[in-house]
């Protein structure tokens, strides 16, 4: 398939579903539209030959975050419930600002001359990505890898602490007091 058509397809899907995500009044649908946006983005990554990244995008974003959001939507609101939106005035002003910002950025992008490096490209297959991710020499990303794993651990524990029921928290408090 022609890559132009493929790109247009993905780009169109991304834009359409992104706009639907922020405008639909049904929260659960917004989550589903977001899922489409994320999947289309993964498609773009595949186009660029970043297969590992695309896989991560699909599993983490589509499989993880969106599912998490759907769960929380189900926990906090009714399916039939329509989300409240901003007032018309706020909406208009936000739209104006956003359009102005977008236009400004696009103008800047088009007027800018991007210069590509002349160095030879390296492989982006999973093997190479994996090696770079855990090596610590040149082009090694072991440190960010470790840091992000600690961050994930912290976030995991943190969200457990934050989200758990008050009774548990008060139990903790009372045992604190006893000490």
């Amino acid at each position, binding site marked *: 398939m022609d890559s132009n058509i493929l790109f247009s397809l993905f780009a169109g899907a991304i834009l359409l579903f992104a706009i639907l995500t922020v405008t639909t009044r049904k929260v659960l649908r917004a989550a589903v539209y977001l899922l489409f946006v994320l999947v289309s983005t993964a498609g773009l990554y595949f186009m660029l030959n970043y297969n590992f990244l695309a896989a991560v995008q699909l599993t983490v974003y589509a499989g993880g975050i969106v599912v998490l959001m759907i769960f929380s939507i189900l926990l906090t609101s009714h399916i039939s419930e329509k989300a409240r939106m901003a007032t018309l005035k*706020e909406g208009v002003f*936000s739209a104006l*600002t*956003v359009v*102005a*910002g977008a236009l*400004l950025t696009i103008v*800047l992008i088009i007027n800018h001359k991007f210069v590509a490096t002349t160095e030879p490209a390296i492989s982006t297959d999973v093997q190479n990505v994996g090696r770079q991710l855990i090596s610590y020499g040149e082009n090694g990303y072991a440190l960010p890898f470790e840091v992000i794993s600690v961050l994930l651990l912290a976030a995991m524990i943190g969200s457990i602490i934050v989200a758990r029921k008050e009774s548990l928290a008060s139990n903790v408090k009372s045992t604190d007091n006893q000490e």
Partner: protein
Amino acid sequence: MPMNAYSYTLLILLIPLFSFLLIGLTGHKYKPIISGLIGTAGLLIVAVLSYMTAIKYFWTDHVEGTAYTSFKAFETTWLHLTDNLTINLGVLLDPISVMMLVVVSTVSLMVHIYSLGYMKGEKGFARFFAFLSLFSFSMLGLVLATNIFQMYIFWELVGVSSFLLIGFYYDKPSAVSASKKAFIVTRFADLGFLIGILMLSFTTQTFDFQTLVSSDGPALTHTGGAVFMGLSAMTWALTFIFIGGAGKSAMFPLHIWLPDAMEGPTPVSALIHAATMVVAGVYLVARLFPIYSIVAPDALTIVAWVGGLSSLFAAIIACTQNDIKRVLAYSTMSQIGYMMLALGVSGYGGHDGLGFMAGNFHLFTHAMFKALLFLGAGAIIHSVHSNDMREMGNLRKYLPITHITFLIGCITIAGIPPLSGFFSKDEILVAALHHNIYLFAIEFLVAGLTAFYMFRLYFNVFWGKERHYHHTPHESPLVMTIPLMVLAFGAIFAGFLPFSELVTSDGLPFEAHINYAVAVPSVLIALVGITVAFLMYRRTSAAPDKVASALGGFYRGAYHKFYIDEVYLFVTHKIIFRYISQPVAWFDRHIVDGTMNLIGNTIEKSSYLIKGFQSGKVQQYGYVFISGTILLVIIFVYLW
């Protein structure tokens, strides 16, 4: 003399304080009478201790022929400011403080007992006794002060308790304004006292009384210091201190609070405004007497003349008043004038110190008979429910005990021998005669006036025409008449105390004789006063009105207390308030407050204007952030 043998005197201070706290804090929890009994029992102990102390000090521990020493039974450092400047609290015993101890505790005990009957059923019975205990504590602390600063502290405490007790009926506007007046006037005078203390202690570098009055101490060896307006620093200091004393002792022209203070319950008048607090000024001068006498005789002259003029002034006014308590109040002022004058004409040491002895003697006897008279007046008011002697008459058959005791008080104050007033007054007249013939003349006249106005009061109340009473007057209960009898006993026999051997300026006894050249005329003029009063008031007649109209303007002036209150009002309202306070208040209200309000309003307005930015709405913040970023980008990319 072993000091700790007297350390129990600390209890004299602590017991009233304790009963004040006990009644004040827990008085509402039990029946009122229990509060009264607590206060009275405390005072009974204090009185017993005081008598013990007096007997021990004056007789048991005293070696014949030696001077009475002054010593501190107890002293502790209260505030250690610097090594040179400490403020101590303690108990100082010397002849005058022991004498005052007896006076204060006796009168206070009598008033406590009397109040059990007089205040019965009053709202605030417990409060009354709490305040009485507070007053007793303060007054005893004042008397026993070891240094002038402690005296100042208790001086103010006494003022506060006086304020509280005058304003005891705080729902009565006249009582409230009288208490305010008393507090403000004495407070104003105390400013003088404070300035005096500061000047004195600055000059002598000490607060301590013993150091101040010791013959080789910094005060007595002081040459007088820098001269200002012809008077030395010490003279100024002592004059200022005397202003404080004059304020408390209601000396002219700071006397205006005393007649109004009669708004308080009568036992309070007897205790505070007749026998104890108002003589604090006399006590203060007596306390610092060696300094007055040796270093600042000019200040002593001021004391003498202020005392003399006050006594004359008050005696004249007393002749015209109709409120029995006011008559007694002016009488008190007049008698305190006597004491001041006695101190003022006295010299230091030996027989020269006759005036000093006489002043303290009169203080002692006056406390007895004036408390008696006030309590008697209280008994009369209690039974008639009026203060106005024009509404009384022929009460002698209803109030026999009150009548007899009141008569004893009147005779005593008139100075008829052998009652105590005669002896003390006689000594004062002798001392005045030795010093200054004009002062003697004034006091001689006042002696006659005193007899006149007291018997005017007596005849008006107990003789004269029978009035119509709301209900038949009845004699007071025993709890009120016993103090009257005790005080009458004191008034009769206090004169036989050998005061010239006990309380003298240098502690050494001297021989005092009755000077017949003075005594006989003074008794005669007193008899003249009594006779005139008898003729005018024995039966209700037109004579008093005739005399009053003959005297014309003078009578009206005296009746209106010589317009001193009006002068004060004129000075304060028309001059100070209008030309000083009002402009200052205007400045404060419009300029100072205006500036502050302007600042405040500006901030408030601008806060209202910018408050919208701090809405707490995260999306608004986000909007501002995004638009700001876009604007910055436009500025930096295109406009820079």
